């Protein structure tokens, strides 16, 4: 009995001790974190003020014919005091100082343009952040690599272009996404050629990100999208087809028609046919009519859909045949395409609704009701 009581008491004391020690540990940890956070905030404020001053300090005017190095010397004289200040920071704190300084510079880069932004880029090089960021593109944590790519883009550090191009093959999609943005920011739309060449198996997010870039420039992107239709990676080809259809530039008709006729993968051919329908150019009518009467059911279906979207009167005979011979989904899409062709198609639907029986009749009646209702 005594022994049991002793054991219980010992266990209780041990448990209490563990709880107390853990609580104290947590409190100390929290206090240390709060202190670190306050310290970082103070540093951010300090470097915001210092940098605002450095970025806006007047430099003597230089003549237009002067060498670039003259301007850089002036910039260097502005940043030198800050460099000295950093050198005097004790080793263990220097990393935190540099981190906050880099953060301030990146934040400035988001909001500034003109000569002030050029100055900022010079300072980023001069403080050796560019080399650091390029090295971080190889960091084992993907989020560090993604942030490095983003920062290099924001600061338009052209020296990093090769490293960013290599990052297009990074295993993590977020890193690839940031690398795309950075490269386009620095090198403009021409960089799309490189991006498409290096991209492999585009994720949805990469596609979304890249589509934003493409849709901002639309026509300027068209030549690069057409060129990339010959890329080996099918996800890139699908992306380019979608973008060409979305932009709606007619120079895309012929390359898309060729792709729809010759590409080995049916899914790509189907996507190209859909794009032709969306472009709605009359030069693709004959081709679509031919495919609508062809053997491949998937391509046939897509062509009928495209013809329906375009409303092509010369497609009435082939659409009528598909309505009579096709399976139910094909009948429905062919009937709708007929309704879209105008009077001739409407007449065919009325005739078939009167003469046919079963499914064909039901489909015709349904579509006629849709088109009149």
């Amino acid at each position: 009995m005594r022994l049991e009581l002793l054991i219980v008491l010992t266990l209780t004391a041990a448990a209490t001790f563990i709880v107390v020690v853990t609580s104290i540990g947590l409190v100390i940890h929290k206090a240390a974190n709060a202190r670190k956070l306050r310290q970082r905030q103070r540093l951010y404020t300090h470097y915001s003020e210092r940098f605002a001053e450095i970025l806006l300090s007047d430099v003597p005017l230089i003549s237009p014919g002067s060498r670039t190095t003259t301007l850089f010397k002036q910039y260097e004289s502005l940043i030198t005091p800050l460099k000295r200040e950093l050198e005097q920071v004790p080793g263990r704190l220097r990393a935190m100082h540099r981190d906050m300084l880099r953060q301030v510079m990146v934040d400035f880069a988001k909001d500034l343009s003109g000569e002030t932004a050029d100055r900022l880029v010079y300072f980023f090089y001069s403080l050796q952040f560019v080399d650091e960021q390029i090295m971080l593109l190889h960091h084992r944590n993907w989020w560090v690599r993604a942030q490095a790519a983003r920062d290099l883009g924001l600061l338009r550090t052209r020296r990093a272009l090769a490293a960013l191009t290599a990052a297009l093959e990074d295993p993590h999609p977020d890193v690839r996404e940031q690398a795309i943005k950075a490269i386009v920011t620095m090198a403009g739309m021409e960089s799309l050629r490189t991006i498409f060449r290096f991209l492999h198996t585009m994720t949805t997010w990469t596609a979304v990100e890249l589509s934003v870039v493409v849709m901002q420039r639309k026509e300027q992107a068209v030549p690069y999208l057409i060129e990339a239709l010959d890329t080996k990676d099918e996800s890139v080809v699908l992306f380019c087809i979608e973008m060409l259809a979305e932009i709606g530039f007619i120079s895309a008709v012929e390359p898309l028609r060729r792709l729809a006729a010759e590409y080995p993968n049916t899914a790509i051919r189907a996507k190209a046919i859909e794009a032709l329908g969306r472009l709605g150019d009359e030069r693709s009518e004959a081709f679509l009519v031919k495919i609508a009467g062809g053997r491949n059911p998937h391509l046939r279906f897509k062509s009928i859909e495209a013809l329906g979207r375009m409303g092509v009167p010369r497609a009435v005979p082939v659409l009528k045949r598909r309505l009579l011979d096709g399976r139910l989904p094909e009948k429905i899409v062919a009937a709708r395409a007929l309704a879209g062709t105008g009077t001739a198609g409407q007449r065919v639907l009325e005739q078939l609704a009167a003469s046919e029986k079963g499914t064909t009749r039901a489909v015709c009646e349904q579509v006629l009701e849709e088109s009149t209702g």
Partner: protein
Amino acid sequence: MCVSTVSVAPSMESLILIAEDQQHIRKLIEYKLTNSGYAVVAVEDGSQALAKARELKPALILLDIMMPLMTGFEVLSALKQDPATKRIPVLLVTAQSKEEEVLKGLEMGAEDYITKPFSPNELAARVKKVLMRTGG
């Protein structure tokens, strides 16, 4: 609460109120406008901006649209409804490619706008132009 006052030119005609939540850019604008000879008061959110505008009646308000507590639009709307502040010109600071924001702001009575990223020299030029136009 962060309100910083810089009194370089103590004339009330040249007092500019900056409402910007991002510390680094607030510091930069403050520095630029102070160097350009204006008195500057800077605040970090919409409600402080409104309170300071009513209290100080600045010659111009530089108003960021995306701010905590009250957005720039809410501040602008409140300013334009108040007879005491409705004549104060407002220069909006907007994010890039937000055309609808600009149009909305101008319709609500803002005098002009500047889009991020911006050049500090351009900002100072616009401030000067708005003040000349409005007699500030």
